[in-house]
């Protein structure tokens, strides 16, 4: 057990730190209806990494470059005939194909493709933790800074604008934080599953929360539980960490959903099975 712990500890701690940012960020992604955007951005990180390896640059620069391209591309593609969710789906699959193509054909990273797609936290060691912790801290600080304005925009855009909030600036700011998060989360859950890490804890939390604050707190607990069980599960089943974390998060979500459906429909069941009838 303790021997296992020594191997798992860095991965576990890194995952837990990451979950501190993913939970509140995931709530905002849902409230601002950016789930598809987050997915497109996450798929873009694969291309970012591939370009960075190819051009021998730091990965952060590659990912930043692709993120900016995604935003500019979306501005260009804005067209009232094309529904936004479909456009984002197109962007996501195109980026995934380009990323895979670059990674497999132009670099020598073929062996690591699965890791980039589904995450490999277990490769981390203690030396990686300060950078992850630092980035998450910066992300959290930015998130706290934009939080009140983001909640107001999610509630009612016109009311927020009257109070002097600039929606475009706020959206770009938020996209920046999201892109940064994707860059950090790539190692943990991989390009394909980043949106799962973002959205699943927040969705689970929605079922049990009455206020934005409650939703964030419950999402935080859910994400921590998912990361912890996921990291241990990935060792136990010998699968990619991202796969196992997202599987745990998905099970938590479906369990919560079933329980919530059963409890809220109790009255309906009771009506049918009432002893008086």
């Amino acid at each position, binding site marked *: 057990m303790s021997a296992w712990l020594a191997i798992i500890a860095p991965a576990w701690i890194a995952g837990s730190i990451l979950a501190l940012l993913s939970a509140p960020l995931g709530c905002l992604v*849902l*409230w601002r*209806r950016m789930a598809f955007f987050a997915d497109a951005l996450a798929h873009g990180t694969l291309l970012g990494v591939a370009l960075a390896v190819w051009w021998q640059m730091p990965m952060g620069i590659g990912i930043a470059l692709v993120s900016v391209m995604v935003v500019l591309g979306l501005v260009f593609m804005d067209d009232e005939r094309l529904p936004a969710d479909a456009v984002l789906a197109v962007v996501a699959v195109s980026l995934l194909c380009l990323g895979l193509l670059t990674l497999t054909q132009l670099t020598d990273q073929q062996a690591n493709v699965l890791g980039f797609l589904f995450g490999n936290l277990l490769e981390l060691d203690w030396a990686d933790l300060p950078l992850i912790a630092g980035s998450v801290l910066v992300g959290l600080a930015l998130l706290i800074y934009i939080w*009140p304005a983001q*909640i*107001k925009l*999610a*509630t*009612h855009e*016109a*009311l927020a*604008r*009257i*109070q002097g909030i600039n929606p475009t600036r706020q959206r770009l700011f938020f996209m920046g934080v999201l892109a940064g998060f994707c860059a950090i989360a790539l190692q943990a859950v991989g390009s394909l599953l980043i949106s799962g890490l973002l959205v699943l804890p927040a969705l689970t939390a*929605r079922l049990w*929360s*009455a*206020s*934005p604050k*409650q*939703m964030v707190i419950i999402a935080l607990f859910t994400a921590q539980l998912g990361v912890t069980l996921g990291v241990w599960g990935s060792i136990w089943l010998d699968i990619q960490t991202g796969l196992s974390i997202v599987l745990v998060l998905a099970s938590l979500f479906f369990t919560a959903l079933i329980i919530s459906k059963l409890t809220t429909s109790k009255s309906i069941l009771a009506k049918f099975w009432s002893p008086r009838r």
Partner: protein
Amino acid sequence: MRGHLMNNTSKLLNLSNVSYYIGQQRLLSNINIDIAVNETVSVIGPNGAGKSTLVKLILGLIVPTSGQVTPSEPLQIGYVPQLFSVPPILPLRVSDLLSQARKKRLTAEQRQFIFDKLSLTHLLSRQMLHLSGGETQRVLLARALLDKPNLLILDEPMQGLDPETEVWLYQFIDELPEFLRCAMLVVSHDLHWVMKGSRRVICLNKHICCEGQPSELAISSEFQKLFGHHYEQPYVHQPHACEHHAPS
């Protein structure tokens, strides 16, 4: 045109020659309006007359194609939107929405006064999603008043309300206490309320058709053309008649 403005009142907001087009489509043209401090102005007009566009221009949500919207002093706008719905993914209690108002504009007693007057205290822990139309309107009105506005804009505030709530809500805004006194712009379909008081009325139909006191308006030919079929003489002479609201 500005004749109805009292000389000794100070101006709050001026719209001069404001026009708004989308492409070739004219939504509003040559709008000139002055709103004085603490003045109540009601805007009436048929569907598609540009009432909501006018509100958006004053709110600063859209920019006029030509002309200017100039506040004479810093505007603190309170706005009760026509349609309001919280996205269901966002769990939001009434208290959460009210906490989005600017802090510390009112004292604790003044806040409590608003809560009492609008009977909100028992609603505070309810979800916004589960409120009825009338409850939502009361919460939104409180949300706007907590900002202590100097201009309160109500866009069709009575949509979907039963006549009883409607009367009550109009009475509430007619009798705001001193610490909430502000200019008001009320967009309304309800001719009964609009024509009852002595507030200035602006009839809008892509341009300002006529404006003035209700008694002057009723005899204006443009007004007759727009509203004559809804608004018959008896209401001028019997302002308290309520057959208007009787279900037909």
